[in-house]
């Protein structure tokens, strides 16, 4: 990348193409600086600013989408960043997540006396890292994205200073996350050793031109394995999932929502870049691994979720199971990776991630509002009779849970249908059937929450008082975020055409 000649020639940057990233970074800096030099802003101002920044980035990305469709994809910054519809799709998804999460955080942070610009700036920084991950065309850049995202998330997870659980969550995530980053980096090093390039296009070109020798092949396979460990950790796929329940439970609820949505989206973006785009020549080697990860995640996530008593843990396990579903889409994409016809795998992954992000943000959003001021009233029992106390919230939560169960006329059904369709198209019937059976097990746990909300005794005394108190501090921002999420969940279930159409065009990748 750096010219060997004495004179340094900087790469062509392409400022316009990077504008969503720049808006997010600029927004984060603005929040930090302006927040530091001005007296505390009026209520909701931080959240609204953050949402506007994210919305701005998303709007730019949508404009870019049109442009790429007309002009075709390209590579930026010395081939390090891919500027294609895949990256734009993930950018929009991540920006949407940030916007919704920021609105949710508003009420939560003020209730917990944590309000300030730092929280929101961290969201924006994390989103930047996530977008870099999903649009990286160089493994080193990808790693930078991973670290940017992860460091912000470590801080966010531990951000509730008065709760030891939050501290514990941050620390656990940090230690295990550092470990997985190390695996990822080691994997990058080994792949570099085998191919002589960290650039994804460079890797593809090298592998295209060279028949690997045995020794090199071993190096490459070891590298791929380590990469998959690192990325598997980030998406919380079983067996690399053990951190998820503890971290999601301990972290402040909006942060859990952020990790389950934007964090997961970014990590899957990275998986697409590394495996599907970068390593199509090894697809027969990594596809069975993805198969196993997918099945393990779906089964372990669903089964262990059934025995949970805490809603946040339950949602954490369900997020593991959803990661498995997305991996079903990746597995389908693997059949066609590197070919001319890319099939339905990646579009189905895109739709699933967008739909799931919105559902999971909504779900954690309801939990954030419903939990008491110490963020502890998240047991299943504290939701008994929730429907009679907060009917509107209960309806929204029911919508999210049914969507997660994949009930028709919700986005969850469309997402599941897409993934299963992709798998069936590639004749992976076994994984499709396992996925559907796992989703029945998972349906049981969503129904458990619904049961305790709607059919539990309305006179559950302890939670009642606390929840009534929480109700008074409720503001428009959280309700708006949840309302929007619910609306989106149903709208996609009824008129999915436009989203599917958009997602179908994310199979063209930028390459040299």
């Amino acid at each position, binding site marked *: 990348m750096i010219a060997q000649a004495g004179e340094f020639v900087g790469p062509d940057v392409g400022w316009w193409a990077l504008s969503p990233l720049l808006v997010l970074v600029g927004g984060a800096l603005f929040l930090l600086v302006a927040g530091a030099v001005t007296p505390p802003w009026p209520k909701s101002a931080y959240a609204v600013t953050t949402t506007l920044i994210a919305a701005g980035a998303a709007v730019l990305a949508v404009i870019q989408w049109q442009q790429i469709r007309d002009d075709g994809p390209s590579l930026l910054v010395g081939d390090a960043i891919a500027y294609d519809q895949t990256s734009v799709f993930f950018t929009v998804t991540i920006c949407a997540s940030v916007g919704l999460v920021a609105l949710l955080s508003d009420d939560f942070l003020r209730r917990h006396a944590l309000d300030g610009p730092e929280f929101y700036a961290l969201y924006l920084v994390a989103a930047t890292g996530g977008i870099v991950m999903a649009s990286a065309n160089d493994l080193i850049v990808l790693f930078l994205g991973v670290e940017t995202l992860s460091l912000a998330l470590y801080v966010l997870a531990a951000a509730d200073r008065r709760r030891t659980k939050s501290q514990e969550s941050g620390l656990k995530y940090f230690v295990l996350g550092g470990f997985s980053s190390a695996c990822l980096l080691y994997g990058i090093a080994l792949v570099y050793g085998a191919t002589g390039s960290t650039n994804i296009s460079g890797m593809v070109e090298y592998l295209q031109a060279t028949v690997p020798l045995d020794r090199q092949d071993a190096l490459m396979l070891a590298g791929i394995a380590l990469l998959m460990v690192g990325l598997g950790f980030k998406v919380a796929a079983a067996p690399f999932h053990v951190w998820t329940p503890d971290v999601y439970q301990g972290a402040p609820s909006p942060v859990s929502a952020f990790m389950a949505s934007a964090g997961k989206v970014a990590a899957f973006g990275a998986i697409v870049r590394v495996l599907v785009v970068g390593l199509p020549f090894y697809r027969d080697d990594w596809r069975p691994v993805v198969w196993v990860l997918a099945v393990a995640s779906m089964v372990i996530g669903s089964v262990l979720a059934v025995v949970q008593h805490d809603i946040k843990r339950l949602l954490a396990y369900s997020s593991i199971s959803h990661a498995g579903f997305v991996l079903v889409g990746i597995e389908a994409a693997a059949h066609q990776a590197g070919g001319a016809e890319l099939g339905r795998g990646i579009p189905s992954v895109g739709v699933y991630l967008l739909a799931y992000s919105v559902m999971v943000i909504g779900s954690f959003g309801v939990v954030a509002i419903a939990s008491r001021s110490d963020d502890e009233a998240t047991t299943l029992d504290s939701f008994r009779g929730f429907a009679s106390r907060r009917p509107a919230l209960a309806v929204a939560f029911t919508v999210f849970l*049914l969507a997660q169960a994949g*009930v*028709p*006329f919700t986005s969850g*059904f469309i997402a599941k*249908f897409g993934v*299963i*369709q992709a798998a*069936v*198209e590639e004749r992976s*019937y076994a994984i*499709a*059937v396992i996925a*559907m*059976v796992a*989703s*029945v097990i998972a*349906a*049981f746990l969503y*129904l458990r929450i619904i*049961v305790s909300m*709607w*059919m539990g005794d309305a006179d559950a005394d302890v939670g009642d008082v606390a929840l009534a108190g929480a109700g008074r501090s409720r503001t428009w921002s959280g309700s708006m975020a949840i309302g929007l999420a619910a609306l989106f969940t149903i709208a996609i279930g009824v008129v*999915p*055409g436009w989203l*599917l*159409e958009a997602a*179908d065009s994310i199979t063209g990748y930028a390459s040299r």
Partner: protein
Amino acid sequence: METSFPILTALIATPLVGAVLVALLSWRRSAEVGKLVGLLSAVVTAALSVWLLASYETGEVGYQFVTQQMWIERWGISWHLGVDGISLFLVVLTGLLFPLALLGVDPHHNGKAYLVWMLILEAGVMGSFISLDLFVFFLFFEIVLVPMYFLIGGWGYEGRVHAALKFFLYTMFGSAFMFVGVVATAFLARESVGRITFDLVVLQEQAEFATSTGRWLFFAFAVAFAVKVPIFPLHTWLPDAHTQAPTAGSVILAAVMLKLGTYGFLRFGLGLFPEAAYWARPLFLTLGVVGIIYGAIVATMQKDLKRLVAYSSIAHLGFIVLGSFAFTSQSISGSVLQMINHGVSTGALFLLVGWIYERRHTRQIAELRGIQAVAPIFAAGFMVVMLSSVGVPGLNGFVGEYLVLIGSFATARWWTVVAAAGVILAAVYLLWAYQRVFHGEPDEENRSFRELTVREGLVLVPFLAAIVFVGVYPKPLLDRIEPSVTELIEHVESRTDYVAPVSPAGERAGEEEGGG
């Protein structure tokens, strides 16, 4: 009559609009208005379904009132609706039953949510019966679980939460396989059809599957339908769900929701995979007959009146399965007719049992006695319905069962012989139950048993009228059912080496039955 008015879409939309209106109305201020709006939308739906029946072209084959709109173009999914002789009466039954069920029983608490769920359920059931697109069918087939789940769980009896959960998970487990089956059908048919489509009509005409593929796909669908019917080893959710459901829930569940399974077998099982269905015939005939005998024996042993009716459903649906898989024009027509008959008579039975519970707060047969003496009109109504369920000549149950048995005899002789014993067993458990509940001297607690009220009477009259009408003069129904059934059998014949036996009674079965 081809109308430009999209009547089928209206059949789905009307209850949905009603549900939304009810949900928006403030219940505290105007509960009466809300109830009226809900009931009105159900009545309008009923009127639409009657209009549909009136303008249905008798004797014509193929689907009528077809609506087709592209919905999700990328996946080849269209909003394709239509009715034929097989679905026509199920639609009418659904349309008429909901207002009756709403009128017949009060939910006692939280009437608003109850009404909303009932109307959504109606839309879902309607949609399942009239959709001609696999994807749309699956949507409706799956969505009906949600309102039913909440109805059982919210307004049922002691064990309601458990029963609701069991119901939901069992059925969803079945549909998990169908979900994969639906997608696989569309993709595997791509080669012979030339594009991806979920359109039932196109798939039925053009799709060709390798023998083993077709069998796998058939079983993927069959599991879902078998759970829904339910066919013998997959039936265990039914007694719980029926017993714990609120009265209206049981009525709807028995009368129309179980038919989703038997209807599915005819429409999708036989229609899409005739070869596989023919191949799997012995299995389903056997399971159907086992269901008849098993359901009857277990029903005899029940102490709970509602559970008894629930098990009797298993027996009756066994007849429908037997008829469907006997593959003759008569047997399948009998099955379709029996779907309606079972809907009417079991629906009415559940209503009556519900009314008994309202009066006595028990369903235990042992605690009921001598009701005939204190409430003779109630007892008379119960008796007519019960006899219809037994299959006494002159009432509807006889016509259906007779057609099924006579039609099956030609192709499935020994199964039919065993099944015929089920008719006797039905008489045993129902008459015995009637005897124990209604005969004898009423004791202290049963002496105050209230007579049938005017409102209940008005609800019951349409059921009784249907029972007697179909029993005496089934021709109008059979005239509309048979052409579609014959077409289905010809479709099966064209795809397999099966040849339907030419029965001398064949074409004139309807008229002969006319005399009762």
